[in-house]
């Protein structure tokens, strides 16, 4: 099939095939905390990241997985990671690459972004530079 367009991806990406057990057309809501292992070896592999699969909804969930794949497809990325809020996404993105003593450049335009960067991160030992106007 040729490369799908945005308008089609927004309906289908991440759920190219319907789920095998129920054949549900809508993306099913897997409202569960945890997922059973096939056997002990399967569980051990999942924990060691030797095999991809569901362990715990906090880390990944099949409903959320479709959502993450769909947004990644729409944005042209390789992988998505959904969080409970945008601020949480920003926190994970920043702490994923920053540590004590690192510097961070921020625009001064948005209040929450500015206070997390200049306030909270400085307390954790990182410096922030706020630009006077826009980041060019």
């Amino acid at each position: 099939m040729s490369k799908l367009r945005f308008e089609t991806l927004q309906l289908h990406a991440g759920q190219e095939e319907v789920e095998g057990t129920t054949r549900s057309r809508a993306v099913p809501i897997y409202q569960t905390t945890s997922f059973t292992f096939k056997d002990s070896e399967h569980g051990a592999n999942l924990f060691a990241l030797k095999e991809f699969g569901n362990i715990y909804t906090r880390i990944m969930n099949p409903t959320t997985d479709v959502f993450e794949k769909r947004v990644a497809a729409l944005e042209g990325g390789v992988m998505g990671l959904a969080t409970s809020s945008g601020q949480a996404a920003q926190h994970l993105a920043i702490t994923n690459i920053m540590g004590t003593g690192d510097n961070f450049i921020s625009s001064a335009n948005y209040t929450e972004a500015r206070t997390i960067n200049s306030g909270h991160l400085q307390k954790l030992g990182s410096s922030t530079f706020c630009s006077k106007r826009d980041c060019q």
Partner: protein
Amino acid sequence: MIVDGGNYNWGNGKFPQFTEPSEGYHGMVFWDVFGTNGPFGNIAFAIRARVEGLRDYGPAISPFNSFLLLQGLETLSLRVQRIVENAMDLATWLEAHNQVESVSYPGLVSCSTHDNAKKYLKRGFGGVLSFVLKGDKANATKFVDKLKLVSHLANVGDAKTLIIQPSATTHQQLSDAEQLAAGVLPNQLRVSVGIEHIEDIKDDFKQAFAAL
């Protein structure tokens, strides 16, 4: 939501989190397994944010909310088409209004970023505009309070039309000088245009203008 573009070299030596053994995974090196030369291609940033960040800090999304967001995504482009049509119409109408000092919307020829907007934004100029009302800060506050259909709140990008006075709300924690540096004027209002019928949006604006 984080989307990993998969196009940055986290193994360049400046990010030890990716190139030194991880304590949480028995010494696994993220860039070796999830980097460009690994079996999955470059997904190192997203994987580490998931299995160290999301795992340990825990700001996980509820599966039910993921479902609702998927439901919304199904018609995203249709809503955006209508939003950008309405926004262009409202911006043009406001610019010609005698109680309005100026309108900032990249779709307008008068906007300083119009040439760049035409180059990059091929399918409309977005759903958010701001305008400066003639008069002082209190006058702009009164305009917001007189609106009936348009919602007064801090969000953008709803299906419903929204308005806010940034100087009094979203940017009030900045000093006056910082507000000006961020492009926020006291009598300026920000509108996030929704998918209502455009004439109903204008009618609400008309009755609020008339009440000033």
